[in-house]
Each structure stands twice: as structure tokens, then as C-alpha cells.
């Protein structure tokens, strides 16, 4: 293996050079010749009937190219949903239409009503203000439980109610679960909210539609985590453009966190308008616009019950969740509270009986979809909070209660339809105890007390299902797409490699980590490998980067393609060395004949492939380029244990994070520096959810947190240095790299640790507080202390 550039090396990132020198190319940095700009006129009411949209005066304003309204999209498809959930009665979910521009009704603040294309952004906005819109206000539904009451105003008139689906999982187990509760020695019950969040990647969304009439080709430049998926959804379902006539480019993308997975109306609009107007059309979202048009995350209201026997073994778990869909079904929305949530309710524990009920509800709010973790943070939060509460009710140590109920034998088939391949939850808990210095807590507690502060310790575990797949399984579960990945590995004549991957990098460091894998396989320097991604014109089909799947699925596809390359190269080497193919070994960038000193360098073999003068042309083709598709056999299951120590100011309720430790098992690790960075980022988002972030609407559906003035983003002084460890490694058994994925763990595992710690601090101070809903803002903590 190369001394410092293979698997396991903390290689510095090559992409950093362009980002550090201001030469990255994000979508908003691109401008097409002759481009016009679009401004969307958005609804300022949550629910209303569109009586008229008069664009006559606005159309005469300076610089206006054309104004589009819903009527212009009558022959155009609806923004599609990519996942169909079947309810507990076997019926498909209710699936409303989602027009590119509002038709008939507006359904949330921010719903686009009209789009003005003009010569400059200011002219477009000026004209948008001159559009006369007559809206008949309708009562809005915001609260999910009220939305499903009899007689509630309907978000979609053509649906029977605001209930998208009522999902039971596993429905056949319900009676047995109920029976276990009747027999339980102890039942712990908790009602909680998983607060609505806004993903807030620092780069706002941008879309540029371009059209080449010469070849009838459309191009969309967009801030996407998955350009191929956008091409498929937008081309096939919305605009009716076949894939060979549509190119989607996602260049440097400034973070995604889920909210840039989805296909958005603005993308379809710019592509459509560019073709209509025969000139490029650009949209750049402002942050204020992002708050009301990017899909939001989380927003679950849950009742969870845990049944235990007389020996404190978990015997059953039962939940009822209301999950907010918002006003329309975003791309993956229905899957988040179901297959990404219900399947994880076993957690790290051998609870034999589990029943999960989820009611997905339409409301007059921005659509809700996947946000870092997507369903798994919601599952982890409920479970790890209820276990903590149970331990307190039973007077047992919360860590001991967890250990007692850990799954310890693998593979383990859960009662919620997944099979964990590997894991060692005691190992990560042991490691946590060490890095978090749990034995030093009492001393730190005493120190805090001296300073008039309440200190608390919160510990929890998590497990997640990553590398989402396999395709045939997700197809049965309602996915309308496959979930494989692909890669084309092109070896050039002089030995350098170009890898075209369907995975997309928007901060994850693929350009550095992927070459490390190939460097390891061939024994060459990673600088000989270039990664190409983000453009459907020059990369093979990919389902995108989310669900911590790029290395586990996309990396595996690359490994498979590289294996094909190596196999062919060995044939060439065997020919050059006049040896039998079976005797050829590849090591340190050279092919040798086993047991001899005969060898040929990597570069000589690759040259022979392209200059095949001395070459077995009768047996193999010239050239060295291979493509592989990889469809995994199972999810991967990263897991770990987290600990948080907080101080609470008893006078103000302000919580500060004093220490945070994370012990993760990600299986094998390719670049530990990048892995740690991923955990750090996830932790800040999880701590942000627990303490700071919360998207709020008033009862009329007005967005109260429409900017950073009211939506509290974690800043550098809100978080501490983190103690992270990934040395506990139980490699994944079913992918060639043995990797599990690390992108979401931090965000999944950290919220319960924070809340457990705050409850611990308050209880140690004698306060009768068993739960506080996130975010644990100073005012909420103070109110809980003084209730």
C-alpha cells in the first residue's frame, strides 16, 4: 500500500485548494451568455383561493421579458413524489398534485404564484410587486392533530382529508405488542416533539436553465446532491424531456444536508422557461426565500411507550407519531417517517415486540422531507429519551439499563424488518466511558456546583441504517427508483485514472477519499486518480449523495469497476511477461510473476492497452475502461454511544455544552480526518436541534422564523471542542470496503444526549422535570424549572 495515501490515511483534501483561494465554482458563480433572471412572486398567506392573477401592468415594466403564471403550466407535469407508502389497510397514500406554479389555490407561505423573467434581478422583483393578485383567504391548518380532526379545512380539496396515510408497522404484530404491555411490570410513557428544522446549507439554492435550439438540448445547472435523479424526475415526470436531451450539472455545491436532494419547482421552471424564451434563465434564492421554499426537516409529534419486565428487560415498544408532510409531498417525504424511522425503532436493543404507527398529515406549511439523518434521528430521540426516563423511574443507572438490553449477537434480525450485520455496542460504550471521562463526572459536578451552576450528564446510543438499498427491497417498500450506484474507471495510456462517479460531493471530500481507495487497490499514488462528478453528461447514472451512502455504495461501485480493470490489466501483464494470468500479482503499482523477479510496471501495462502492438488482441479488446453498477445486499448499520455534559444557569435557564464525546463504529475508515470532520458537523447540527433551532409558524401559518434573526443557527461559541473516536470497528460484511457511512451519525446521536443531560442536571437540583421539548432555549428551560 502507498505509504501515506491509501486506505486509512488522513490525507489532506485536494479540493481545499480551490475553496481556499476563491476559485471554487458554485452554481451562482456561473453565468450563461444572454441570461435573464427570474423572481418568484410567492404567497404571503398560508391558505387561499387564487381568484385572479393580473400581470398586465407588471408586464409593461422595464426589462420584463415574460411573466408566467400557473396557467402556463397546465400542460406540464406535476412535481413528482419518489416514494409511495401503503397504509395499514393496504391502500396507497393520498398523493396530491404539485404544480410548478400555483393553480387554483396557494397552500403555504412561499408557494410560488407567478414568475417574472426580466433582464436584471431587480427588474424582475420590481415587476413581481406590480402583479395584482386577488386571493380569498381560507383558514389555515398548521397543527397536525387539528388538521386530521373532522371538519378541518382541507389543504387539498380533491383529497378525502388531510391524512396522507396511516401506517402501521408491523401491523400483524400489534395485538402481540398490546398484550405484552398488559403483562408488563413497568411501562414508561413519554410524549415528545421532534422540532421542525430548516437545513440551511450555507449556499442558498440556485438554478440556471439553458436551451440550445440547434440541437433541441436543455441544460439545468443546479445546487443538487443528485443531478441524475433531478434529470430523471424533471425530465420524465414534469417537462417530458427525454434524458438524452437533458443535461443536469451540479458543480461545486455548498452543502446539502438533505434539502438539496429534492426536485424543486424552481428547477423545472428555469428549464421550462429557458426553452420557451430561447435564452438562459437564472434564479438565485435569497436566504429569506430559502426559509419558505427549501424543504424543512423533522416535525414529528410522538407518544412512545416502553414495556419492561420485572428484571428490567425491554419486552415491548409502542409508538404513535404524527408526521408533518407540509402542503405538498416532497421527493422522499413519505419514506422518512416510515421506512427510515419505523425500521430503526429497535435501536441497539433486543426488544422482541415493536409496533409503530405513523400518521402523515398535510398542513399549510412548507413541505417537509429528509434532513441529515431523516427519520433515524426521530427514532433515536424517542427511544433514547424513553429509556432514560425509564431508568430514572426505576432508579437504575441509565447506562446499565442500556447494556442489559443491548443486542450482542450478530447478525440480528429485528422485529422491525431489518437485519443488523455487525456491531459491538458494548465496545463503543466502553470507549465512550473512556473518552468522555465518565469517571471524572462527579468531580466536575462538584466544581460546577461551586460556581452556582447545575451540571448534568446525558448518555445515549444510536444505530442507523445507511447506504440505503437494495433496490429490489426498497422497490417493495414503495421507492419509485433504484438505489444502486455506478462508476466508470478510465485508465489513460500513461497510467493515470479518471473515475466518473454518480455520487456527488458537496463537502464530503470524495475527490480526496475515492482516490485513496484506488491507490490502495493498485498501489499507486492517489494523485494519479482524478474524480469526475456532478454532470450527467460525463458521469454514469447515480442516485446521489445522501443517507451516508457515497462510499458504501458509490465507493463499492468504484471498487467493482477497478477490480474489472485490474483483472484485464493482469491479462495484459501476463501477455507481456509471458506468464500465466493466474501467476500475476499486483503490488505497489507493478505486476509480477509469483515466485520470480519478473515484473512490469503499471504504466507499461496501461500503455500497452492503448498502443497494442504487443498485445493479445485475439483474446481481449484494447483500452482500459470499465463500468460497474453496485446494488448492495443490505443497509449498513453504523452505531455508537454519545455523552454530553451540560451546565444550566439556574437563574436564566441557559444551557451550555461543557463536553461532548462520541464513540462511533463506522466499520473500516478510508480517511479518518474526513470522518472526524463529518462527525463534528453532525454533532453541531444535533446540538443545534437540541438547544437552538426550531422552525415556528403561528396559527395562521405565518412563518415566525424567516431569517437568521429568529432561526438560531449554532455558532462557534455555542459548541465546544468535541472528543470523537472511531476506533471501534466492526466492518460491514456485505460491501467490498467494509465501510458503513459516517455522514449522519453526529446529527442522529446527539440530540438525546443533550436533552438527557439537561433533564439530569435539573433532577439533580431537585426539580421535578422529566422532559422538555427541543429546542431547549433558555426561556423553555427556565419555564420548566419554574413550572
Amino acid at each position, binding site marked *: 500500500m502507498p505509504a501515506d495515501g491509501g486506505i486509512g490515511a488522513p490525507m489532506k483534501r485536494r479540493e481545499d485548494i480551490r475553496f481556499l483561494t476563491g476559485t471554487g465554482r458554485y452554481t451562482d458563480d456561473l453565468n450563461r451568455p444572454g441570461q435573464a433572471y427570474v423572481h418568484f412572486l410567492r404567497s404571503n398567506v398560508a391558505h387561499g383561493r387564487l381568484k385572479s392573477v393580473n400581470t398586465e401592468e407588471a408586464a409593461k415594466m422595464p426589462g420584463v421579458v415574460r411573466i408566467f403564471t400557473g396557467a402556463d403550466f397546465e400542460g406540464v407535469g406535476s412535481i413528482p413524489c419518489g416514494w409511495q407508502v401503503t397504509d395499514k389497510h393496504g391502500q396507497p397514500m393520498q398523493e396530491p398534485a404539485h404544480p410548478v406554479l400555483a393553480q387554483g389555490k396557494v397552500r403555504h407561505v412561499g408557494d410560488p404564484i407567478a414568475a417574472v423573467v426580466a433582464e436584471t434581478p431587480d427588474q424582475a*422583483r420590481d415587476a413581481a410587486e406590480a402583479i395584482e393578485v386577488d386571493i380569498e383567504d381560507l383558514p389555515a391548518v398548521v397543527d397536525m392533530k387539528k388538521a386530521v380532526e373532522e371538519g378541518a379545512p382541507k389543504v387539498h380539496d380533491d383529497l378525502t382529508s388531510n391524512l396522507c396515510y396511516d401506517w402501521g408497522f408491523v401491523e400483524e404484530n400489534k395485538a402481540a405488542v398490546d398484550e405484552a404491555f398488559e403483562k408488563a411490570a413497568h411501562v414508561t410513557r413519554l410524549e415528545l416533539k421532534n422540532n421542525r428544522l430548516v437545513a440551511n446549507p450555507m449556499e442558498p439554492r440556485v438554478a440556471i436553465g439553458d436551451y440550445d435550439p440547434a440541437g433541441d438540448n436543455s441544460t439545468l445547472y443546479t445546487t443538487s446532491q443528485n443531478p441524475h435523479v433531478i434529470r430523471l424526475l424533471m425530465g420524465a415526470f414534469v417537462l417530458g424531456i427525454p434524458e438524452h436531451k437533458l443535461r443536469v450539472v451540479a458543480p461545486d455545491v455548498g452543502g446539502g444536508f438533505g434539502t438539496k436532494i429534492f426536485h424543486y419547482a424552481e428547477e423545472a421552471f428555469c428549464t421550462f422557461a429557458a426553452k420557451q424564451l430561447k435564452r438562459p434563465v437564472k434564479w438565485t434564492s435569497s436566504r429569506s426565500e430559502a426559509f419558505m421554499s427549501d424543504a424543512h426537516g423533522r416535525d414529528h409529534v410522538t407518544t412512545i411507550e416502553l414495556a419492561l419486565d420485572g428484571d428490567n428487560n425491554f419486552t415491548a415498544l409502542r409508538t404513535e407519531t404524527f408526521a408533518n408532510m407540509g402542503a405538498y409531498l416532497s421527493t422522499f417525504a413519505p419514506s422518512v417517517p416510515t421506512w427510515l424511522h419505523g425500521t430503526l425503532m429497535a435501536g441497539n436493543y433486543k426488544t422482541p415486540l415493536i409496533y409503530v404507527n405513523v400518521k402523515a398529515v398535510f398542513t399549510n406549511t412548507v413541505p417537509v422531507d429528509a434532513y441529515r439523518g431523516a427519520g433515524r434521528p426521530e427514532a433515536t430521540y424517542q427511544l433514547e429519551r424513553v429509556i432514560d426516563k425509564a431508568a430514572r423511574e426505576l432508579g437504575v443507572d441509565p447506562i446499565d439499563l442500556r447494556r442489559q438490553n443491548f443486542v450482542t449477537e450478530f447478525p440480528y434480525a429485528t422485529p422491525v424488518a431489518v437485519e443488523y450485520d455487525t456491531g459491538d455496542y458494548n465496545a463503543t460504550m466502553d470507549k465512550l466511558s473512556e473518552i468522555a471521562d465518565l469517571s471524572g463526572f462527579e468531580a466536575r459536578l462538584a466544581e460546577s456546583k461551586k460556581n452556582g451552576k447545575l451540571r448534568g450528564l446525558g448518555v445515549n446510543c444510536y444505530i442507523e441504517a445507511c447506504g440505503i438499498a437494495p433496490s429490489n427491497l426498497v422497490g417493495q417498500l414503495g421507492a419509485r427508483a433504484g438505489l444502486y450506484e455506478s462508476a466508470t474507471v478510465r485508465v489513460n495510456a500513461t497510467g493515470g485514472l479518471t473515475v466518473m462517479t454518480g455520487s456527488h460531493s458537496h463537502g464530503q471530500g470524495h475527490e480526496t477519499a475515492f482516490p485513496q481507495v484506488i491507490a490502495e487497490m493498485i498501489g499507486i499514488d492517489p494523485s494519479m486518480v482524478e474524480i469526475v462528478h456532478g454532470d450527467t453528461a460525463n458521469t454514469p447514472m447515480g442516485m446521489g449523495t445522501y443517507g451516508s451512502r457515497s462510499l458504501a455504495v458509490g465507493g463499492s461501485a468504484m471498487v467493482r469497476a477497478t477490480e474489472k480493470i485490474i483483472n484485464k490489466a493482469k491479462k495484459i501483464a501476463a501477455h507481456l511477461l509471458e506468464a500465466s494470468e493466474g501467476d500475476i500479482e499486483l503490488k505497489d503499482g507493478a505486476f509480477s510473476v509469483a515466485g520470480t523477479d519478473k515484473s512490469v510496471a503499471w504504466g507499461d501495462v496501461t500503455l500497452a492497452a492503448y498502443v497494442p502492438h504487443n498485445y493479445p488482441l485475439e483474446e481481449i479488446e484494447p483500452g482500459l475502461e470499465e463500468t460497474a453498477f453496485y446494488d448492495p445486499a443490505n443497509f449498513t448499520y453504523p452505531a455508537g454511544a454519545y455523552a454530553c455534559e451540560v451546565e444550566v444557569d439556574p437563574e436564566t435557564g441557559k444551557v451550555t455544552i461543557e463536553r461532548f464525546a462520541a464513540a462511533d463504529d463506522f466499520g473500516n475508515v478510508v480517511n479518518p480526518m474526513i470522518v472526524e470532520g463529518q462527525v463534528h458537523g453532525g454533532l453541531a447540527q444535533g446540538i443545534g436541534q437540541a438547544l437552538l433551532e426550531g422552525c415556528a409558524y403561528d396559527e395562521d401559518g405565518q412563518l415566525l422564523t424567516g431569517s437568521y434573526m429568529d*432561526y438560531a443557527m449554532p455558532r462557534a461559541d455555542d459548541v465546544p471542542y468535541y472528543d470523537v473516536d472511531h476506533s471501534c470497528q466492526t466492518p460491514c460484511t456485505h460491501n467490498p470496503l467494509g465501510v458503513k457511512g459516517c455522514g449522519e451519525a453526529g446529527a442522529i446521536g446527539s440530540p438525546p444526549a443533550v436533552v438527557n443531560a439537561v433533564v439530569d442536571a435539573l433532577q439533580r437540583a431537585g426539580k421535578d422535570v422529566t422532559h422538555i421539548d427541543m429546542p431547549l432555549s433558555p426561556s423553555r428551560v427556565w419555564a420548566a424549572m419554574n413550572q
Partner: protein
Amino acid sequence: MYAFELTRPTSLADAIKALGEEDAQPLSGGQTLIPTLKQRLAMPSTLVSLSGIEELKGIKNEGGTLSIGAATTHAAVARDGSYPALSDLAGHIGDPHVRNRGTIGGSIANNDPSACYPAAALGSGATIVTNNREIGADDFFTGLFETALDEGEIVTAVKFPIPEKAAYVKFEQPASRFALVGVFVAKTADGVRVAVTGASEGGVFRWSEAEKALDGNFSPDAVDGLTLPADDMIGDLHGSPEYRAHLVGVITKRAVAKAG
């Protein structure tokens, strides 16, 4: 933003003249005004930039009174140090970049109910100097985003008598980092002044009950047991009126302790 003209006079006289035009508005550091303009919540025909007027900049310490030109940035006040409590306050407004642009005159004239400077001015018993007159802080801040300034009148300087002891403590709103409650206390020759920002529907105000208690005993204990009615307090997603009323007491004590 709507379109407007931006002029950059180099003298106060030219600025006043330019402000006489219809719908002209002064632009100081712009740290609050520009976001407002972006939201299209203001529609000036002309913005008269004050940043090029040297006579509006600078800090002078004249016999125990600190006179600060209106166009002096927060960063400059933070660096000055001759009125430590004021420099400390200025050094914690917004963030470093905002402090390099934002000015004392802009902040005072805007009178945002969550801004820090109004508390310093009121708490110190400062005098606000305009192009026409001098106005005592007690008369200057008249309500939410309201001041005693007339149309076309601008703040040119703020004069702070430096008190024996003073301190400002801010409890930040978690998102904006503006004051959820900020309290400025000053022990002056004429008695103690306590000014509270962030909390009240009416903007910055003096907490006279606390002032009385602290007059006799300038120590945190003096504030014990004092309560403010929650009636006029701001209630929003970041805190109820009751919470803010409670915080005023806590933060006042901390400010007194900090003043020493």
C-alpha cells in the same frame, strides 16, 4: 432594494442640505438599514451617507465627559477604553464585521428596542447632540424605533459623562444575538441609573425602583426581591413577558456585580 440615489457629502452642512430633499434618509453604518432595504421595507429616494464626514468621527475626553462623533464605529469605541463599560458594550455589539461598520449615531437614532447603545446612553445620562440642539437621553428615546429627532435632524455626537462605576450585561437572544435583555447600570455623582433594553414593548427604559434601591446600597443584594410587572414586556418565541421581567432582575444584579 428599491432604487435610490446615494450621495456621499464630506461636510455636515452638505449632508443636512441633502437631507432636506424629499424622502432623503441618512445612511450611517447601514448595518440595520441595509437589511431593511433588502426586505423592501423602506423606500428612500436618496440615501445620504455620513461615512465620508470627518467632523462626525472621533472620540474626545473633555473633563470627564466622553464626546463621541456620531459616525464613530463600534470598533473605535471598543478600542478607546476611556469609559471602560461603554467600550465593553461596544465591543460586544453584533460581530467584529458589524462593529467595523456600525456607528453609535446610527444605533442611537434607530433606537431598536433590542439594541445596546440606547441602554448605555440612557443609563449614563448621556446627551445626544444633533445638528440643531442637545437632547438629554431621558427625553431622546420616545418609544419603539422612535426618538425626539425631527425630520431632517441628525445625531452628530453623543456626550457621555463618565460615571464612578458602570457596567453593561447583555443576555442574548439566541438567534440574532441582540439583547433579549440588556441592562446598563451606572453609579454617578447624581445617583444610580439603571437602563434596560430588549425587554419592553416601549423600548429602552429606566428601572427606577432598582435605581432607588441601589442608591442606598450599590450591591447586587439591593436588587433582591424587586420585581417588574410583565405587562409591558415583549413576548415572542424567544421568551415570554414573564421570562423577560424575571431576566431584568437577574441581569441587573449581574451588571451591578460587574460594575464592582
